[in-house]
């Protein structure tokens, strides 16, 4: 046979089974006959036409079959509306929640930033670095094509042209001018920052984000070149970032990008000669690997360089210390995850999404199995008249996909709604806008693929099972073929138990998280929370010189004291109860006699005079900071000289260092300084429910000259929070009406905001747990209902022979109860094992897990709840079985 003939035959054999049965031989014959004739008459052109004709019709025939299948599937679903409705609802919940997890977590971890060229080349280090080190990294041209320095979540007071009101507080990034070229980004308008143009000494040029441009300038093209006041200094807007870009290496969106070449008067973060001081490490690294360089080779090379640089630093860890000095991770996603944690985190979310979807699929599969049994006669007829088994399976799978697509559409709508709710949830004080987590076309594709996979997933096994039929007995007996018996329902029982197990697993795991979050959310105060308020103030970013700012804070306490509305107050870097801290802090007991002195890591919090008095916390030993401490001058240049700084420990930290709740007068070393312990205070739970070892450092004149990025917090109490607020406001206004007070909040509002953020997490996890519960109940009810319907005849006979109603009830319930019991045991063991594994491998969840795991309410309550609900779900159809009239049931067959 010629090659053309062989191609033709192959194509003809690839046509759908039904088509081949009817026309295959004839088409082959006609083709081979024409081929000879065509070759004689038209030569190669004719043969090509012939082949093209058959090649074009091949996909058309499949499409037409698919259309037919779809039509048939739609009719079949319309005929059993309750099955369709329950199915669509289950799938909508399953797909909707999975899509929600995808948009809220997965996409945040995996999706690369918009507008970035070759994102896989972007890397960052897990720890920040000093600028002199960054300059050395920059010299490694064969390793890195660019290294930018970034300081995150820097707040600026911004006054727009013509703005008469007080300036807005805007989040931004302080970046080296090569930031955008390392990202490989093109401007949307104007120009981005560049190392050539943005040099020291010129009027500072800044770039604004697309979002800020739209929200504050109405996307006006004339924005470029406009002059704004930034922390009281002049700056010019030179460009707008591409759409949707709001900063690399940050979760909180940056609205303004300011080069580090601006003077320290504009950005106090640049004080202390931070660009030349190798002891200060405020900069995140944003690096682009040279082509062909792997992240591992770059890491080991940079680690070696860092180690060499550390040799000249007496305070760096000893050279014998083998620990890596620099660890790289990918930088192109919204959230950066250490490389070793990444698979675990993605694994958790994959697991969560898989189990949600699996439960929905199992639910549908049990229903489809039951339905398949009911359709045996129909299927047997179709097999009998020559339909291929493959065709029938395809038909049933098509039905599944159609159902799943309908469910998927509803699920996508659900995910959209959930995303809209999340987007409107406000975050606690100081946190800026939520990053954009709305659904988009990628989410839609995800939901669509998920729906197709689900449709195939839940219908393929039932289809295989239902078409595995002996035609003759099925035709003769129809539905009555399978009257009872656990064995016949093997696959279905397995699916049902797996569903109960999966639901319990989901309920418990989400329950652990929910309980953990709830427990962590109970902040206890020794005073009435309605009497406290916070305000933030930042004179330096309002244009004050460091000296003027210091003078302001020197006078402030007396003025606040004289206000009748304020009963007590204190200054601090952070408001109390905020989860988080000023950073890790390693302290060593300064004991010349010890061979290996005790060294511990604690959290650092910087607080002012009278901080614990405002909180009504007792002082367990020694004293707390007073205004003398607040007047200390402690510029880093003076480190290691002068008297030790006072330090207050909480109980946990004191125990860690000294084994007891004392240690007054002891010296600790750390952070290039010596500290003397002057007091011990009780442990306080923070808003995330944890009590950690904390070292409290005094707020000093250095902090006033160069306030931290979030400003200085004034914590004030009065007869009511509103009184206190009014008092502080009028005091500050009387000192300088131009000073901005921002993030003004009462403690109640603040706690409410924290709770709102928690509630959003609760809603997600609680919703997922509840979803599993509802689905397994629906599934059980459906399956038991089918079992009852199928056993009508048997039940009828039993009742006719004198079986009591309760015996019938027991008969039906027993089967359901066995399934529930097996599922419950498996699910329980699985979830405890999983929770243990989870808290062992990821720190992200371990806090919540460790608080939630082991709560007897959950460990006993959840299985009982599920089992109870499941039995109820069985009871309803079972009680219907009791109402069967034996005569009617027997006549029906």
């Amino acid at each position, binding site marked *: 046979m010629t090659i053309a003939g062989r191609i033709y035959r192959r194509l003809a054999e690839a046509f759908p089974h039904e088509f081949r049965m009817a*026309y295959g*031989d004839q088409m082959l*014959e*006609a083709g081979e006959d024409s081929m000879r004739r065509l070759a004689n008459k038209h030569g190669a052109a004719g043969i090509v036409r*012939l082949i093209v*004709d058959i090649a074009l019709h091949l996909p058309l025939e499949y499409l*037409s079959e698919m259309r037919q299948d779809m039509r048939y599937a739609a009719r079949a679903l319309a005929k059993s509306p309750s099955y369709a409705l329950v199915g669509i609802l289950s799938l909508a919940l399953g797909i909707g929640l999975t899509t929600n997890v995808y948009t809220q977590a997965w996409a945040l971890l995996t999706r690369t930033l918009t507008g970035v060229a070759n994102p896989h080349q972007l890397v960052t280090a897990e720890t920040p670095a000093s600028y002199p080190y960054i300059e050395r990294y920059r010299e490694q041209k064969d390793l890195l094509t660019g290294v930018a320095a970034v300081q995150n979540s820097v707040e600026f007071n911004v006054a727009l042209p013509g703005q008469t009101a007080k300036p807005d507080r805007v989040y931004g990034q302080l970046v080296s001018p090569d930031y955008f070229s390392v990202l490989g980004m093109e401007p949307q308008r104007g120009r981005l920052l560049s190392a050539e143009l943005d040099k020291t000494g010129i009027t500072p040029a800044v770039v604004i984000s697309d979002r800020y441009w739209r929200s504050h300038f109405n996307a006006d093209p004339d924005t470029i070149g406009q002059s704004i006041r930034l922390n009281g200094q002049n700056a010019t807007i030179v460009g707008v970032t591409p759409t949707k870009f709001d900063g690399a290496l940050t979760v909180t969106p940056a609205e303004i990008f300011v080069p580090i070449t601006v003077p320290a008067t504009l950005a106090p973060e640049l004080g202390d000669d931070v660009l030349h001081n190798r002891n200060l490490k405020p900069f995140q690294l944003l690096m682009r690997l040279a082509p062909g360089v792997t992240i591992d080779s770059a890491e080991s090379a940079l680690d070696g360089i860092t180690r060499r640089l550390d040799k000249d630093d007496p305070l760096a860890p000893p050279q014998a210390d083998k620990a890596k000095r620099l660890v790289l991770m990918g930088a192109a996603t919204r959230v950066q995850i250490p490389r070793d944690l990444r698979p675990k985190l993605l694994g958790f979310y994959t697991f969560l999404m898989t189990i949600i979807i699996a439960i929905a699929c199992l639910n549908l599969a049990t229903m489809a199995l039951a339905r398949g049994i009911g359709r045996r006669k129909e299927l047997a007829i179709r097999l009998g008249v020559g339909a291929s088994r493959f065709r029938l399976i395809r038909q049933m799978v098509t039905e599944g996909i159609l159902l799943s697509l309908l469910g998927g559409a509803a699920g996508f709508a659900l995910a959209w709604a959930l995303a809209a709710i999340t987007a409107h949830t406000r975050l606690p004080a100081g946190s800026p806008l939520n990053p954009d987590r709305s659904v988009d076309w990628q989410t839609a594709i995800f939901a669509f693929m998920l729906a197709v996979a689900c449709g195939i997933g839940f219908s393929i096994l039932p289809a295989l099972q239902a078409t595995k039929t002996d035609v003759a007995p099925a035709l003769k007996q129809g539905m009555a073929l399978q009257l009872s018996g656990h064995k016949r329902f093997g696959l279905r029982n397995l699916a049902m138990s797996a569903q109960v197990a999966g639901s319990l697993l989901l309920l418990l795991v989400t329950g652990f998280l929910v309980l953990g979050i709830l427990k962590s959310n109970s902040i206890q105060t020794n005073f009435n929370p309605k009497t406290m308020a916070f305000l933030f103030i930042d004179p330096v970013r309002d244009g004050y010189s460091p000296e003027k700012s210091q003078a302001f804070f020197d006078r402030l306490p007396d003025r606040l004291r004289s206000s009748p509305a304020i009963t007590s107050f204190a200054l601090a870097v952070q408001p109390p109860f905020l989860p988080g801290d000023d950073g890790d802090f390693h302290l060593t007991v300064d004991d010349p006699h010890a061979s290996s002195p005790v060294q511990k890591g604690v959290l650092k919090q910087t607080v002012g005079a009278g901080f614990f008095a405002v909180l009504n916390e007792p002082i367990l030993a020694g004293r707390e900071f007073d205004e003398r401490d607040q007047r200390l001058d402690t510029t880093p240049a003076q480190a290691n000289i002068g008297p030790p700084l006072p330090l207050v420990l909480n109980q946990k930290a004191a125990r860690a260092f000294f084994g007891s709740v004392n240690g007054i007068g002891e010296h600790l070393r750390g952070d290039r300084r010596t500290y003397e312990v002057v007091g011990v205070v009780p442990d306080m739970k923070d808003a995330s429910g944890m009590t950690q070892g904390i070292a409290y450092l005094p707020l000093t004149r250095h902090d006033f000259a160069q306030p931290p990025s979030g400003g200085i917090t004034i914590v004030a109490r009065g007869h009511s929070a509103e009184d206190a607020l009014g008092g502080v406001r009028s005091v500050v206004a009387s000192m300088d009406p131009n000073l901005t007070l921002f993030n003004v909040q009462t403690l109640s509002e603040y706690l409410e905001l924290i709770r709102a953020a928690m509630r959003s997490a609760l809603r997600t996890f609680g919703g997922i747990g509840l979803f599993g519960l509802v689905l397994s109940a629906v599934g059980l009810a459906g399956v038991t209902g089918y079992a009852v319907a199928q056993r009508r005849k048997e039940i009828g006979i039993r009742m006719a022979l004198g079986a009591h109603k309760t015996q019938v009830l027991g008969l039906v319930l027993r089967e359901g109860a066995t399934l529930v019991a097996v599922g419950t045991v498996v699910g329980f063991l699985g979830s405890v094992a999983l929770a243990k594994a989870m808290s062992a491998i990821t720190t992200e969840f371990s806090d919540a897990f460790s608080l939630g795991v082991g709560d007897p309410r959950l460990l006993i309550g959840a299985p009982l709840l599920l089992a109870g609900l499941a039995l109820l779900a069985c009871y309803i159809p079972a009680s219907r079985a009791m109402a069967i009239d034996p005569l009617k049931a027997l006549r029906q067959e």
Partner: protein
Amino acid sequence: MTKVDLQSFLPLKTQWFHIMLSLAGGEQHGYGIMQDVLERTTGKVHLWPATLYGSIKRLIEADLIGESNDRPAPELDDARRRYYRLTSLGKRVLDAECERLQELVRTIQVKRTMVTE
């Protein structure tokens, strides 16, 4: 069957029309139809095999043609071949299509005489 039903098939697709026209003369098998059309149109219309059988399948689904049980004498028959015939609906649709085409031709002729005058 109402008139509306017939109209919904019109105008007939070219391949459908040629296949149905070939069957108007009597039962025919697929390959026969192909050759018949080729001869009738002096090679201008070539029904390629896949097009032909795809159209036959759809014509059967639309109930315009059906499979015939009458087979030729055994010595002329090939067991693989299936024979097709017009259904009564098919006949009426073909009539309606022919009438439509005649109407069209008449209109064209009238127009042409108007132009030449």
